[in-house]
């Protein structure tokens, strides 16, 4: 099935996703939203991996599965990161009653 989609289409979408995620991390102030944007960045990397895996075909035309293996590990690590991260955020929320990053800073130079 030829959909006319090339590697560049996928790379462009994943690049945009990565940029959106990065912009969100830099601009947003709610930690939960920042955390979602971080996951978006990981998803962008995943999309890049799958795209490269699909288009770097081997001699028999099968996709190069190495990229997909890394993808599985990224998904797992992201889950572990979310579990730990949300726990820390919940603990901070209980201590400070806020999820706004501009309000949590207490240490000074």
């Amino acid at each position, binding site marked *: 099935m030829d959909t006319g989609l090339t590697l560049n289409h996928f790379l462009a979408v994943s690049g945009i996703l990565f940029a959106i995620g990065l912009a969100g991390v830099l601009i947003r102030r709610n930690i939960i939203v920042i955390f979602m944007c*971080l996951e978006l960045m990981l998803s962008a990397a995943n999309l890049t*991996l799958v795209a490269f895996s699909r288009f770097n075909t081997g001699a028999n035309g099968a996709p190069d599965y190495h*990229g997909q293996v*890394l993808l599985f590990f990224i998904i797992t690590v992201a889950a*572990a*990161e979310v579990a730990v991260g949300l726990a820390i955020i919940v*603990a901070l929320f209980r201590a*400070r009653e806020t999820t706004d990053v501009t309000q949590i*800073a*207490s240490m000074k130079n």
Partner: protein
Amino acid sequence: MPAYALEIIVFSLGLVLLLVDAFAKLEDKRSLAWLGMLGLVVVFGLLFKVEPRAADDANVFWRFYSDSRMSLFFKGIAILSTILVLAMAIDYRGLIEKFTAPAEKKAHPQAGLGEFFALPVFACAGLMCMASATNLVSIFVSLEAVTITFYVMVAYMRRNVGSLEAGVKYLILGALSTGFLVYGFAWLYGITGSMDLAEIGAALKSGDVSPTAALFAFSLILVALGFKVGAVPFQMWIPDVYQGAPTPITAFLSVGSKAAGFIVLLRLSAVFLGSEAVAGQVAMAFAVVAGLTLIVGNLTAIPQSNFKRLLAYSSIAHAGFLLTALAAAPRKLEAGQLSSATVVAFYLGAYLLMTLLAFLVVGLVRVHRDSEEIEAYRGLGKSSPFLALALLIAMASLAGVPLTAGFFGKFFVFQLAIQGGHWWLVTLAAIGAGAGFYYYLKVVAAMYWDDPTGAAAKAAAIPVSALTRAAVVTLIVLIVIAGFAPRMILGLIG
């Protein structure tokens, strides 16, 4: 015994510690730390019994794993620092208990303490895997194993706002750097078609790869690892996280996490520097980052009045020296010349000894004087001469006074930079080292010359347990040995 058995043992040790903590009704959880240290000492001994990979060993596992001398040396660094961190954690347990004890009255006051002794062991297993990782997948997984364990450890004091804030900052910036790293890895894999560092290096060398795409992947990876090692402009999290985290963890972070970042950076930079098409730009990028890190790290350290924060800036400054060694990597190694990997390994080994020694004293002063300000160290030379001497040696070595480990670390970096003809980097490093003398010796001056004020004037000597005393003496001896006979350490690196 093959090298990977060590990681399996350390990881199993961590699991055993968790299970013992959960199932055995321990009255005093310090025994967990003792068990962990004992296990790690055994593993450290086994390090010298490792048999190299058999020539006919065709296990696919070796595609992910290297057992070179260098990786064994880094494994030694990881194990040694974990043992010392556990020793520090025993002294520091009072504060951990205070901020983690359950609210219920009848609960055991040490109920939240067990994992604090088990987590460093898991981080150690991750660090050891990373020392041997030669594949993007194994690098990623071991790096994340270490990072996620550190998220938990930094935020461990869950009723202490400072620790939690440090945890959240480390979490957000750590996850951000993971995002960059993975995206960089995805591109590196995409343009070379391989996850194996040797194959990636060959592909980059062959010239079939677009240099623009290779540089894009490199810059993403440089941003990610810049966060991990604390290179300017990605260093902003370091002071707050170092200050907020429990002191033993800060020590672990500044040694273990930095060593981990530099192993990966060494491996990946070798891949890029091997390619004619991009080597020039890559070395230039390293040089710029190294120069910035040297200047910012050293100059912002000068006005600090909190000792833990000072050590955080000092950690940035040392990252600058290490990056200088990377930037000055010789294209072709001449006979008798040290490779930049050897210099980095030696520097990290020396940095481990002196930083852990400094943090040992910081932790004790924090527990007994309830302060981390430099003012609290006034008069320490009179009230606790042993600790003051330890801190004096740590500071002298960090500053790079001759006949200490730190001197030869800096000496080799300068040698490499001068041989490579990087004169402006040499100038910046010299300015940085000069500033270092000022801010490290400020602490020494406070200990020996300044009269104590307020509560510190009446403070009694700080009690030092036998274990801590043994750790301090070992570190001092090692610093002096490395300062007199650096060739011994270089021989270990191979």
